[in-house]
Structure formats: structure tokens, C-alpha cells
């Protein structure tokens, strides 16, 4: 083996280990039973208290409703954003719409602005319209935030499609609505899934709107609950907090590794 290769493998091994340490400690210490946690981090697993810790975290941070809420928010807003943005992308690319550039910028501009800009006006108007602290309110915000980027991805994808299929269907007398659902959506399926996965993760991981637009424990999303649990770090103990973090991360980790292909394709479309 050449010196270069030895050096490369050594560097890689060091990097991989460095990266693995926090993940390893997360898992190992989430396994340690909370009662036998000695006050300093464990490096090797001993006993199996994971499920106890998770159930403690579940009770302390009211994770049950939070997980249900986040599932609702993530699924509904990601689907709604994919469909609405898909319709808009279809309209601007396939249908005879005037001033396409204007419509593009009106919708796309939303994704360029930092979320902080929307926060207080939305907070105030929600307080006035009783959307504050409701599930509908959060779904609306998450959908609105997801639409611009979804539109961008789906529009770019639609631009690459051959027009002949749609034109043939139109000549055969299919309505735009039918063309969209029966021809366009199946053709853009992979981009739609990429958008769904991307937005699902974004909504699931959101913290800022979760702590701003919500106060009740049975409305708040899961990351707000985790932040709350972390706030009680010294009371509940590290194993419980880590087990909670592990529990709320499982859905996105599983989704990420089962849909990595779509992640990569959504990132590539981002170009």
C-alpha cells in the first residue's frame, strides 16, 4: 500500500470516528436507564433503558399529541404544497398564461425571504382572527412557506417535459384539469415525491413557528415539545432528553434513508 493511500485511509478513519462520536453518545446514553445515570456521559452501553426513557420523555414533554400534530402538519402541508405548486407550475409552463415571469417571481420570491420577516405580522393577524394556537393556523403557514420552493422545483422539472403529450391530449379534447391529473402528475411523479419528502422534513423540523404561533401542549408540534424537554434538562436527566431527541428524529431519519434517492434528486433540481 502506498504512503498516500495509508494517509488517506487514516484521515478518513479519523474523520469518520470524529463524526460518529456525538451520534454514538446520543444512542448509548439514551439507552442508559435514567435512574442509573451517574452524572457523566457513558461511552459503552449498559442495561437497556431506552423504552423507559422514551416513555418518560413521552410523558414529561407530552410527546404523544406533539407527534400526532407534527405528522398532521407535515403530511397535510407537504401534500397541499406539492399539489398547489404543481397546479401553478403546470399553469405557468404548459398553459397559455400571460406575464409568466411576473407570476414566477410573485410565487418564487417567498422562498428568498428569511422566515423572521413573516413572524410578527402573522402572529398579530392570527391573534386577531382566532387562528392563533390552532392546527388549521399552523397548516396554513407551513403550506404557504412550502409553496414557493415546491413551485420552483416543479416548474423547473415541467420545463424539461416534452410538450407533445399534453398537446395531443388537448387535441383529443381532454380538459386542462384532466390533463393535469392524468398526464402531468404521473409524468412529474418523481419531482412531486422529492418535493413531498423535502417539505415533510422541513415542516417536521420546524421550531420557530412551533414556539411562536402556539401555546397549548395539544397543538404544538414536536420540535417545540423537544425544546421544552431540553429546557428541563437538569430535572429529567440527560438519558430522557436524549431518548426524546432520538424518538422525535426517527421519522425523518427513516424517511431520509429510505428516500435518499429523492433527496438527492430534489437537491439536484435545486440547481
Amino acid at each position, binding site marked *: 500500500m502506498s504512503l*498516500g493511500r495509508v494517509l488517506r*485511509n487514516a*484521515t*478518513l478513519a479519523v*474523520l*469518520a470516528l470524529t*463524526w460518529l462520536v*456525538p*451520534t454514538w*453518545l446520543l444512542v448509548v446514553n439514551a439507552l442508559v436507564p435514567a435512574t442509573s445515570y451517574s*452524572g457523566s*456521559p457513558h461511552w459503552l452501553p449498559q442495561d437497556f433503558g431506552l423504552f423507559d426513557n422514551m416513555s418518560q420523555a413521552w410523558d414529561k414533554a407530552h410527546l404523544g399529541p406533539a407527534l400526532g400534530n407534527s405528522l398532521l402538519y407535515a403530511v397535510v402541508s407537504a401534500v397541499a404544497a406539492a399539489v*398547489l405548486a404543481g*397546479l*401553478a407550475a403546470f399553469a*405557468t409552463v404548459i*398553459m*397559455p*398564461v*400571460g406575464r409568466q415571469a411576473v407570476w414566477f*417571481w*410573485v410565487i418564487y420570491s*417567498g422562498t*428568498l425571504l*428569511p*422566515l*423572521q*420577516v*413573516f*413572524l*410578527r*405580522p*402573522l402572529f398579530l*393577524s392570527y391573534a386577531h382572527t382566532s387562528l392563533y394556537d390552532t392546527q388549521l393556523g399552523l397548516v396554513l*403557514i407551513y*403550506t404557504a*412557506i412550502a*409553496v*414557493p420552493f415546491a413551485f420552483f422545483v416543479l416548474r*423547473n422539472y415541467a420545463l424539461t417535459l416534452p*410538450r407533445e403529450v399534453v*398537446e395531443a391530449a*388537448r387535441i383529443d*379534447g*381532454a*380538459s*386542462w384539469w384532466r390533463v393535469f391529473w392524468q398526464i402531468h402528475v404521473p409524468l412529474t411523479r418523481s419531482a412531486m415525491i422529492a418535493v413531498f419528502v423535502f417539505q415533510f422534513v422541513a415542516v*417536521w423540523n420546524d*421550531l*420557530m413557528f412551533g414556539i411562536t404561533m402556539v401555546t397549548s401542549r395539544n397543538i404544538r408540534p414536536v420540535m417545540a415539545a*423537544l*425544546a421544552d424537554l431540553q429546557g428541563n*434538562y437538569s430535572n429529567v436527566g440527560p438519558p430522557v432528553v*436524549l431518548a426524546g431527541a*432520538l424518538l*422525535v428524529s426517527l421519522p*425523518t431519519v427513516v424517511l431520509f434513508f429510505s428516500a435518499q434517492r429523492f433527496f*438527492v434528486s430534489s*437537491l439536484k433540481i435545486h*440547481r
Partner: protein
Amino acid sequence: MSTSLTSLTDRRPPSAAGGPTAPRRATPAGRSRHTVRERLVAGGFLAPSVVLVALFLLAPFVWTVYRSFFGDSRTSPFSWFDNYALFASDPALARSVQNTLLWVVGTVALPFVLGLAIACMTDAGRFSRLVRLCVVLPYALSGSAVAVVWNFMLTTDGAVNQVLTTLGLDSLAQGWLLTWPGNTLVMILANAWQATGVAVILFLVGLQSIPPETLEAGALDGASGWQQFRHIVLPQLRPVSIIVIGMSLVNGLKSFDLIWVLTQGGPGRATETLAVSMYNETFLELRPGAGAAIAVVLTVIVLAASWLYLRRQLDVKGV
């Protein structure tokens, strides 16, 4: 849909988007009758997205810009640029700007360099898949979960201090999150731990799109490994590099979760970035005018940063 009836009787090819360039066009008379209807339908397709974005994103944006010109005393008088002047007079905001600059440098440089290095080293090789998995794994975690993990690493009786004490380096053990600028720097490292994964993925995609012939040609001409990398690989990674830099830059500017869960911007207000300061001023200090001004400044910076890679995207796609 009611439109299906009319379109059944209408056997003309649709006048394609972008009118003038469309190869086939309807006759002018038929076209006007046709297009009014068509445009209504197209409007219906566009409306939900446009209304949502206008109502939930653009209107609040305009309102925030407007609010930033009004003061925070009880009557909220019009105050010109007083809220923006806070950047010069308020030490907490000056610190926040400093931190934001640190974050920008750190979130661009670290994932870029580490991502490029790891992608190049794991492009081929036996245990490279395993290495890649280790690095990409944290990318699947949320900012809040990353904060929980790193709090465990960095608290006074956390893993980092434990290791230092075990190695006999007690003097180096410290409250990592308590003193500036160390606390900001370790959070930037935590962010790099999470964000490098996506850079690795993107660089691998870029590396795989390099035709092997160019490398073979370089090798035949006697280019060394480093020369090949410098003069063949690197130039061809330019498009991907721009995406990685642009993405990390914007994500770094917008990052909120990690800081909020780890330190809430404290101790004092030492670890705030602009994204966190806006939240603090608005909702904790109850100075919405100042918060609005910070949000506007953040927007300007984010827009300028986006321009870096947007320019390319829009050139290619041609709006």
C-alpha cells in the same frame, strides 16, 4: 370541471405558452374567444398558490418593512431610520452582527472544505460507504435534535470536558457555551457536524458527472494526483461548488433552531445572530420596531447572498 365541456368542442391545439415563439398558433379570431376562457382556467390553477404566498408571505413582508420605520415607545411614532441606527448604538446588536459574520464564514468554509475533502476521498475505496454514512447521518436530524446532542457534549459535565479530564487536560475543560467567542465557535462546529453531509452528497454527485476520460487524458499527459485535482476536477466542480456555497450561506444566515435550543442567544445576549436577535427583540424585549429593522437587514443580506447562486440558476432556466 365545467371547462371540460367547452374544451371537448374545441379541437384546436392550445396556443402554447409564450405565444410568439409557439410553433402553431390559432387564428386571431378563434384565439381571443379561446384565450379568455383558457386564461380563466389558468388563473384558477395559479390562484391558490398566488393567494397563499401573497397573503402569508408577501403581505407580512411589506408590513414588516413598514413597521421598521416606527418607534417602540407606547404610541409607536414614525421614527425614520432610528431602528436601523440601533445597529450602531446597541452593543447587543453589534455583537449579533459580529456573530452573524462568524456564522457566515464558518457555515460556508467548513462544510465546503470538509465536504469536498470527504467526497473526494470516499469517491472510491473499500470502506468509503461506511465513512460517508457516518458523515451524512447527522444531516437527517433536526436543528433542535442537533442542539440536544451538542448540549450533551458541551455542558460543564458533558462529554467533551470528560474526555479532556480523562486525558489529564483539566485546564482545557471549561463551560464551552458560557464565554464569547468560544460559544459561538463551538456552535458553528456543531452546525458543520450537521451540514457537511449535504455538501458531501452534492460533491459526490458532481464528481460522478466528471467524464473519466478527462482524468485519463490528464494522467497520460503526466499530471500528478494534485495537478489532476487542481486543474481537472476542481474546475468541473464549479457549478456544484456554487450551489454548496450558496446553500450553506443562506442556511447559516437563517439558522435559528440550533442557537435557540442551545443557548437562547445567551448568556446575556452573547451568542445571538441576526435571526435570533429578531426573535428576542420582538417577542422577549417587546421592541417590535427594532425587531422589524433587524428582519429587514437580515432580508437584505439573505437576498444579496441568494443572488450569488440565483444568478446562475435563472440564467440556465431562463425566466
